[in-house]
Each structure stands twice: as C-alpha cells, then as structure tokens.
C-alpha cells in the first residue's frame, strides 16, 4: 500500500451556518491532508463539527471559506455535473444506513450504478460481486427492513463501493451497532482498505473505533482541529486537553484524593492472584493509595498483605471494604498509617 500523495486536501476551511439567532461557526480554519490508501480517523464529541466536515469533503455542504482538493481537483471549481461525477469517486456510509426501504438489497446496490448510467445487466453483475464481498449474497432479494443493523450497514457499504470509489467516507458508521457487530463492520472496512486500496475516512466519537482500524487521527474539538497524528502517538502522548478527554474519557472522575481511613487486606490463598486493587479502582473510578504491599503468587493463589488508603468519601470507602470482602479477602481497618 502506497501512502504518500494526499487524496484529500483541506485548506483553511471554515463553515458558518446562518441562523435566525445569529451565525454559528461549525468549522473554523481546518487544515487536513488525507493520504491515498490510509484509514484516517476524525474523532470528536457530539456537535464538534464532524458531520459538517465530512459533508464538506464531498461538497454536500459548501464551505464558507477555504478549499477542498480531491485528487488534486479544487471542488469549488467544478460545474454541477462535474461535481456529480466526482462524487461517484467518493462512497459514503452513514450511522442510520440510509438505505432505500422500498427497494430490495440488490436494488439498493444497483442504485448508484443506475444513477451513473451503467447498463442494467452489468449493474446487476457488479452488485452481485459486491454482495459477495460484504458476505450477503444470500440476502440479495430481501428488503432492508428484514435485515439486522449490521447487515444493513454491509448493504450500505456494498452500495457505496458500487461505483469503484477512491475514498469511502464513513460518518458514525458503527455508532448504531452493538460492540460485536461494530467489530465485524470495522474488520470489513479494514479488509476493503487492504484488498481494494480504498482510502477510508472514519468519523466517530468512539476512541475504540479509531484504535481498531485507523492509521492516523485528527481530533476535532469545538469546530477546530485540536491535534493530528498517528493513532499511537495520540494514544500515548495526547498533547491537548481535548485529546486527553477522548483518550482518558473518565479522567475527571479520578479527582477525589484518598482520605484518612486505611485498611489492611490479607491474602491467605482464598483468592486467585489477580489485580484486585486495580480492578477496584477501575470499577469505582476512585483513587486509593497503596501504602504497603507484600504479596506472593503461589500456584496462582495470592498470599500476603496490602495496606491501602481509602477515598475521602465514607460511603465509597465502606463500599470498597464490602467489595473486597465479597472477593473473599480478609479486610480490617487500621489506624495510624496517615
């Protein structure tokens, strides 16, 4: 896979919506290069401007300022007809799938080909191939209402690929799906990227989607790009507050510091050796301070003791003690440590 030339280039793009109660800048000074063959993620909270940005890429939304280049072509320089043509090089899929409900599966996949003026039998052949790619050949004659969410999104993917696009734009494509189905759809997208070399732009508000398939990611926060980099880089060293909020979404709930109460946890082989304290911290989203620890792992069983400093909040502290007791540990409160 060659990743060097930008297939999409966005230069100082802004989008202002004019409303009855004033103007609203949904995008401000966006600069972005998406390379041919990569899977590029755009992540941000709801209302950050992600959908507006992706709609500017295929000019469903005309930017108020700035330029979008697709494959080197300035989209604002195109006539209506040329724009219709170039859109066929950019497939798009949506959160709500947006299938034609009165057409069956194969009819849906044939639809963009009909619009492109492809001959009927040829369109049908191509649609059948695509249903093969997304694993839905047996559903060709079903109607969308008879399919599950994951299957509908697969039909939408087949439809988006029908005109042999160079880019696939995915706006929250997995946000309406459960985790297992999400994984399946993401794997399909990854496979399409690898096998067909199609550049994929993934819009999402979920970090795990980015983590799963993206090479690079842009973080969009309050209408602006906060940070762009490789997924690894952003994950390990988020520089901006916006990035940290997305990478460590529960960051703020760790604010409460441990209080005065301490307890001793005795491991006497009744529990298996697992990161119990870490698990508790994650479950409660409250910090504890380990003051003393001496444990051994013998045959997968835990022996020894740990002394921890409990959170300030008495209710939480009590619940933690109960939590530990429920794990078959001997717990006693101790004084004089802090």
């Amino acid at each position, binding site marked *: 896979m060659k990743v060097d030339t930008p297939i999409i280039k966005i230069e100082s793009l802004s989008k202002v919506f004019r409303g009855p109660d004033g103007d609203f800048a949904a995008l401000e000074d966006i600069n972005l290069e998406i390379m041919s063959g990569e899977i590029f993620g755009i992540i941000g909270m709801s209302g950050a401007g992600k959908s507006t940005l992706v709609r500017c890429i295929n000019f*469903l939304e005309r930017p108020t300022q700035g330029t979008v280049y697709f494959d080197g072509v300035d989209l604002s320089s195109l006539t209506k007809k040329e724009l*219709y043509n170039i*859109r066929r090089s950019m497939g*798009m899929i949506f959160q*709500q799938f*947006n299938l034609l409900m*009165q057409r069956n599966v194969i009819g849906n996949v044939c639809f*963009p080909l*009909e619009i*492109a003026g492809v001959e009927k039998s040829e369109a049908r052949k191509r649609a059948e191939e695509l249903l093969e790619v997304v694993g839905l050949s047996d559903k060709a004659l079903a109607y969308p209402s008879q399919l599950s969410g994951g299957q509908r999104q697969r039909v939408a993917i087949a439809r988006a690929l029908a005109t042999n696009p160079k880019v696939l734009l995915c706006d929250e494509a997995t946000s309406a799906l459960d985790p297992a189905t999400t994984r399946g759809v993401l794997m399909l997208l990854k496979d399409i990227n690898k096998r067909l070399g199609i550049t994929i732009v993934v819009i999402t508000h979920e970090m795990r989607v980015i983590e799963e398939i993206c090479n690079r990611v842009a973080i969009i926060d309050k209408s602006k790009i906060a940070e762009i980099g490789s997924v690894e880089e952003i994950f390990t060293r988020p520089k901006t507050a916006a990035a940290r909020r997305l990478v460590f979404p529960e960051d703020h709930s760790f604010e409460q510091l441990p209080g005065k109460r301490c307890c001793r946890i005795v491991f006497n082989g009744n529990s298996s050796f697992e990161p119990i304290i870490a698990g508790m911290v994650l479950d409660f989203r409250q910090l504890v301070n380990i003051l003393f620890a001496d444990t051994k792992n013998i045959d997968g069983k835990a022996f020894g003791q740990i002394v921890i400093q409990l959170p300030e909040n008495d209710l939480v502290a009590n619940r933690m003690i109960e939590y530990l007791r429920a794990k078959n540990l001997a717990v006693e409160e101790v004084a004089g440590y802090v």
Partner: protein
Amino acid sequence: MFDPVVLKMLGRGLLESIYMTLVSTAFAYVLGLPLGIALVVTDKEGIYPKETFNWILGLIINLLRSIPFLILLIMVIPITRAIVGTTIGTNATIVPLVIAAAPFIARLVESSLKEVDKGVIEAAQSMGASTMRIIFKVMLPEARPSLVVGAAIAVTTILSYSAMAGFVAGGGLGDIAIRYGYDRYQTDIMLVTVALLVLIVQVLQEVGMKLARVSDKRK
C-alpha cells in the same frame, strides 16, 4: 319506486359519478403532483430551495383551497364554457372538480413526500444524483405507500365534490339526489343514491389502503 326506468337512471348516475371522479382525479393529479413535488423541492429545507417561489406557490394553493366548492363551481363557469362548450353535464363538472382538487392533491403529495427520510436523500446526493433523479428515483418511490393512501383520500373527496355538482345539473348520483330528493321530495330515491355514494367511498378507501399495505416493503 324500483321500476326499470328508475333503476336505469340510477345505473346511469352511478356510471356518470364514477366517470367524473376518475377523469377528474387523473387530471387533478396531472396538475397536483408536480405542484406537490415543487412545494417540497423548493422548500427552504428542500433539495432545490427557492424560497420566494415556494412562498408564492403555497399562497396560491391556499387561496384556491379556501374557496368553498359550491362557490368555485359558479366562479369557474366562464372557464368551463370556454373549455367544454357547455356548463351542464358531467364533462362540464370535471373542470371545477379539477380546479378544486389539484391544490388539495398538491398538499397531499407534499405531506407524503416530506415523510421521506432526509438521510436517504442525502445518500443519493452523495452518489452524485441530480435533483430530477432524486425526485423520480428516491422521493416518489420511497413515498409510494403514503402516496397511494393520499390517492384514496383524493378520489373519495373528489367523489363527494362531484355529488355537490348536482346543484348545477352536473350529472351523476348527486344530480339525481337533488332532482328527486330535493325538488320532488322522493326521499327514497335520494337515500338510494346516498347509499350508493357511501358504497363507492367504502370500496375505494378499502382498495387504496390495501394497495398501500401490499406495496409497502418496510415491514
């Protein structure tokens, strides 16, 4: 009362009513369907926004709709004479029926088309579909069940309007009801015509709903 002459007259009235209704509905759709499409497409939120045009169109449609049918019937007499050459009989009734029904149908079509999911239209736009393609390949087919229900409503409404045309000797069952029931106090004949009208409405309504259900692939 049910001697052959009366029966023959009722049969003729029935056929005339059906004839007027179907022909008027067809012509009214020829005018109303494009107007309904125009209302949706040129709306501020539509796929081809033209706000001033939309406003004027909406105004004209509302004006026409607010004229009571009986008054319209008389107001359009010159137009009827110019088009049909006469102002009595079934063909003469078709003119005011079409003028009254077209704006009503435009509103029915408008509301059906507005039910079409915006996302599906957006998907078609993302595939490079032109406005015309979206109208004919997305909006109309996706709205089909709702359009069929609308057509059933339109046709029954036109039927009841056509009965009112009896007041100006417009032919059909309404004409009979007025000539016998109102002018000659033959209530029995009037009741039979009313029963026939109710029957046709019922049949049309049932057929329309059934068609809509069968053609809807959303279940």
